[in-house]
């Protein structure tokens, strides 16, 4: 009961400063929510168990390296890691289809649909949404160049004419835009592949 009084942020800080017991409280507090979330996606208790374990291994490593920035969002952060690992799992199992030894013939093992299924559509929409939000984080000048180059397919010459800067400046802005995007992606552990 008393554990409920200690906020996640404090526990995270305590754990990062070496108190192992804080991690136990965090895991026990959130294990059901995180495990249920994973299970609701994979519908297999063994796989859910594996992903749950991998999620917390990632959490532990990030916290121990001091690479976590506490903003009072511990659970959403862990959920995000779990979500990314679930996507990784589906991606891997798509690449290496497993033989489903359920005892009876499964017609879906020989039929395939080349159009995006519901899961892939969701992932695609999510990736696009993430990219859009990442691009919004960029400074205006870098965002403008990136939008013109990637989305409007303009050449750097056209971009330099439109924005009134030299081609080299436009190239530099594009370069910094990509560097900054990578930085944001790395900082937030975002997986942007479909």
């Amino acid at each position, binding site marked *: 009961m008393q554990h409920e009084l200690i906020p996640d942020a404090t526990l995270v800080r305590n754990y990062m400063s070496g108190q*192992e017991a804080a991690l136990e409280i965090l895991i026990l507090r959130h294990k059901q929510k995180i495990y249920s979330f994973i299970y609701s996606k994979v519908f297999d208790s063994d796989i859910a168990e594996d992903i749950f*374990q991998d999620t917390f291994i990632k959490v532990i490593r990030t916290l121990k390296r001091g690479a976590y920035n506490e903003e009072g969002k511990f659970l959403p952060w862990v959920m995000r890691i779990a979500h990314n690992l679930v996507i990784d799992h589906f991606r891997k199992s798509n690449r290496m289809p497993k033989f489903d030894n359920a005892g009876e013939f499964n017609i879906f093992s020989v039929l395939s649909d080349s159009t995006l299924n519901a899961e892939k559509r969701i992932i695609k929409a999510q990736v696009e949404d993430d990219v859009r939000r990442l691009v919004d984080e960029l400074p205006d000048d870098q965002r403008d160049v990136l939008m013109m180059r990637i989305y409007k397919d303009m050449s750097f010459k056209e971009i330099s004419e439109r924005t009134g800067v030299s081609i080299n400046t436009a190239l530099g802005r594009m370069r910094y835009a990509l560097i900054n995007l990578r930085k944001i992606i790395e900082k937030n552990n975002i997986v942007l592949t479909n």
Partner: protein
Amino acid sequence: MAKLYSEKSIKNLNRLEPKDETVKFLLDYSKALSVISCKSLKFETLLN
């Protein structure tokens, strides 16, 4: 019968939790893992 089935499934949903062994493994892993910083580099060591 239908009622019995639904009661069972609700019960199962509430029991959606990782195994105790998994939690114990994570706690042991955490205790075994230490990160050593050297200038700008960080090294992980796992003590068994």
